[in-house]
């Protein structure tokens, strides 16, 4: 593992994060993070799809005619997503019901298409696989943060364990914040994450 390869994995965590810096794949990041468990399942699914799609497209990159590459990419990605969808329905049916249409929407997730276009079409298979895993994990870390914050403050629990009730917070007048579970707060939380990240790293700020 050379330093270039390890930077392929670590860069998406901070300097090149798919959500907060590249602004890709926002739809699912916001929609599935009302609780931690679906967020983690979604993060794993997307990581698997990005990594494998990157690998497959990179293996085929010299034989794909440029004019129809979008269709070829869509076919590869949707085949992988169909597999992921069937696996989720077989092993974690309740989470798959919660994620509803957002599993299918991994096909049009901009992270997948973006990495295929920007990286896999021009790089070797091993590098592309690492890039896919790195970007999947960079996406995962934001999903886990969002899922943790929204479940803790919105429902008063962590991974379904009712922590606020066990600590007796409700008896001293604590209330869950219902707004955190709803759509608007997810957007504002991502805004705050971007704020924190760009305050500490001035090179990412926009003019």
């Amino acid at each position: 593992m050379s330093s270039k390869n390890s930077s392929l994995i670590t860069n998406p965590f901070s300097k090149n994060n798919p959500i907060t810096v590249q602004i890709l794949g926002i739809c699912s990041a916001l929609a599935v993070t009302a609780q931690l468990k679906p967020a983690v399942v979604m993060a794993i699914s997307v990581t698997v799809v990005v990594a494998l799609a990157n690998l497959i497209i990179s293996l085929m990159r010299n034989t794909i005619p440029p004019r129809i590459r979008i269709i070829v990419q869509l076919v590869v990605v949707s085949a992988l997503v169909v597999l992921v969808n069937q696996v989720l329905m077989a092993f974690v049916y309740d989470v798959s019901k919660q994620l509803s249409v957002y599993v299918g929407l991994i096909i049009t997730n901009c992270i997948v298409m973006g990495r295929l276009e920007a990286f896999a079409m021009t790089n070797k298979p091993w590098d592309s696989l690492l890039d896919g895993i790195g970007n999947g994990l960079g996406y995962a870390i934001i999903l886990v943060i969002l899922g943790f914050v929204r479940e803790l403050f919105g429902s008063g629990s962590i991974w379904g364990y009712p922590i606020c009730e066990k600590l007796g917070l409700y008896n001293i007048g604590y209330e869950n914040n219902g707004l955190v579970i709803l759509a608007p707060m997810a957007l504002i939380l991502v805004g705050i994450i971007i704020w924190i990240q760009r305050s500490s790293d001035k090179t990412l700020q926009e003019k």
Partner: protein
Amino acid sequence: MLEFFNIFVKSIFIDNMIFAFFLGMCSFLAVSKTVKTSAGLGIAVTFVLLVTVPVNYLLNKYVLQPGALTWISDSLANVDLSFLSLILFIAVIAAIVQIVEMVVEKYSPSLYNSLGIFLPLIAVNCAVMGASLFMQQRDYSNIGDVFAFSLGSGIGWFLAIVGIAAIREKLRYSHIPAPLKGVGITFIITGLMAIAFMSFMGIKL
């Protein structure tokens, strides 16, 4: 008639693609810098939705649903092809976007020039795919409902992107903390707009 109108209004305001389901956020954030381009993209998305969702509805009804193939022969009543719906929906969307692009290029070069760059991008817009999947999940009973739903979703998306673009044009002259400039503040404003749209949730249709 009233039923179509209900679905239409519901999909514009209450089930707004962006503020309630976050669909199409990528192009929403990337293209909303000026009102003119975002209006162009909004119209293109509305048009593609209006064509693809009814086609996918027919596909779902006559090919994919469990027992949908009985119009060929009764022996196919147990066939369930719904696991193929993702791959077929995206194929239909990609093909229709391609056809729309060619038709527009042939018959209206001026419209093609103003939309040109956005048309191919619509194939990978979550809002288009998402509308087809919602259509399948909500099980609309006839094609009129589906037309009302797809037109309403498109107009809702159009309103959202034009609204945020107008706000961003004004924001260019405001003093925003440096780390929030650009995307950060756009996220927060979208959140505030979503809170405003939540006020429609109480309406019973």
